[in-house]
């Protein structure tokens, strides 16, 4: 068990966002958290990452490195692709020479010295992912990383992602049911604000998954009904 969260509550002033959220994350699994936009998924991730504090509840997590991929990417505009990856390696106190390898891993070989402004949205997010993976994280948090991309790019990235993050423990937040069913080993369904866990569903399909197969669509229907 890589992470266990119990009864997490969080309010912003009078606004109750998380109302007793609990679930486990197993080693090496991809756990998707699905819910409508604004239901607190991002807040939950930030609490897990340690940059927000829950009002109450308990998080049991192994002491380790956490990687975070943001929805709005958040690359440093004044650093190159390589430089952005080296930055986090530096801040985590790790060896910077891994950076090149990571660039290759996400398929951006040749773009090492490009500045973010010269990259497409999809390429920028690849750098975001490369950055998160470079630190060899014990836990990878991804906050709707493909939400701002067009449909085609999104599908391609989802496919590549499975290859890149193979073997890692990942929590992937999204409001896209199709995405969740495609990527996840298990899916945590969150209700509307104030959010509680509605259900946790095992997706028992071999990867890579066929988006139009009957079983795939059945899972989608199940999740949709629960939301």
């Amino acid at each position, binding site marked *: 068990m890589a992470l266990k969260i119990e009864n997490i509550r969080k309010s912003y002033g009078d606004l109750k966002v998380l109302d007793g959220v609990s679930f486990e994350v197993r080693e090496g699994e991809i756990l998707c958290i699905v819910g409508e936009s604004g239901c607190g998924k991002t807040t939950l991730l930030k609490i897990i*990452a*340690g*940059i927000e504090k829950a009002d109450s509840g308990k998080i049991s997590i192994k002491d380790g490195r*956490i990687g*975070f991929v*943001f929805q*709005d990417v*958040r690359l*440093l*505009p*004044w*650093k190159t692709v390589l430089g952005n990856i080296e*930055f*986090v390696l*530096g*801040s*985590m106190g790790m060896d910077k020479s891994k950076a090149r390898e990571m660039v290759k891993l996400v398929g951006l070989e040749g773009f090492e010295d490009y*500045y*973010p*402004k010269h990259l497409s949205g999809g390429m920028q997010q690849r750098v975001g992912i490369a950055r998160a993976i470079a*630190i060899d994280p014990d836990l990878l948090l991804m906050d709707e990383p493909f939400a701002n991309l067009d449909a085609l790019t999104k599908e391609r990235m989802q496919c590549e992602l499975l290859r890149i993050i193979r073997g890692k423990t990942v929590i992937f937040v999204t409001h896209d049911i199709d995405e969740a069913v495609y990527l996840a080993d298990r899916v945590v369904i969150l209700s509307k604000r104030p959010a509680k866990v509605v259900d946790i569903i095992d997706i028992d399909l071999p990867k890579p998954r066929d988006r139009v197969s009957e079983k795939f669509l059945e899972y989608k229907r199940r999740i949709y009904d629960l939301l």
Partner: protein
Amino acid sequence: MRILSLLISLALWYFISFFTEIPPPHEVFYKFLFLIIYEEPILGKTLIQHAEASLFRVLIASTVAFALAIPLGIFAGWSRNIREIIIPIVEVLRPIPPLAWIPLAYIIFAKLPNTVQVSQLYIVFVGAFFPCVVTVFDSARNVPEELIEMAKVYRANDWMVLRHIVLPHSLQGILTGIRVGLGVGWMSIIAAEMIASSVEGLGYFILTMYEVGGRSAEIVSGIAMIGLIGYIMNYIFIRLERVLIPWR
């Protein structure tokens, strides 16, 4: 389009010189060239030598001003505590025009040798310092929160945030601050030279030409030189921005 602007300006100038005592463009143009090559008889220096003198003063005083203003602006933008101490002081002193400092400067620097030169440098310092510190401060203050949040997730310490995020973000502000500060400093030195005494300098040159009389072309040439140098300095910095900030 730029050529059109030039032609219109010249036409306007000719038009005005018809009705006033201002010398027409060609007269000024010849006088300008003459003064660059030959020494002006009364003061014994070429226009370039006067320009050098003024420029020298501005560059020295401005450098000191920026060496102070930039770190101050960065730290004030970065730390709330520093901001609350420093910024009120800056805002009170900023509206005072550099020239108003002259009498006080004479008193402050009376004990030093070369009081007048030091006072002039001080005037330029004041002129260059405030626009720079304000611009840098503004830039450092507006570092995007998201980037800092990202850095915190990846456990960057304060020093790394300052060096890799705040500083590069503020670079735009720093260059703009220097560009504007130099502009104001340049204006200040000309005025300071007219009021205090100097041996050379563009402000001094213009004033003397006025006092002796009958030298409108020289006066306009001096003014043209002031404008030219100001324009060049500005241009250099705009180009510099493009080189130093390739990611925009």
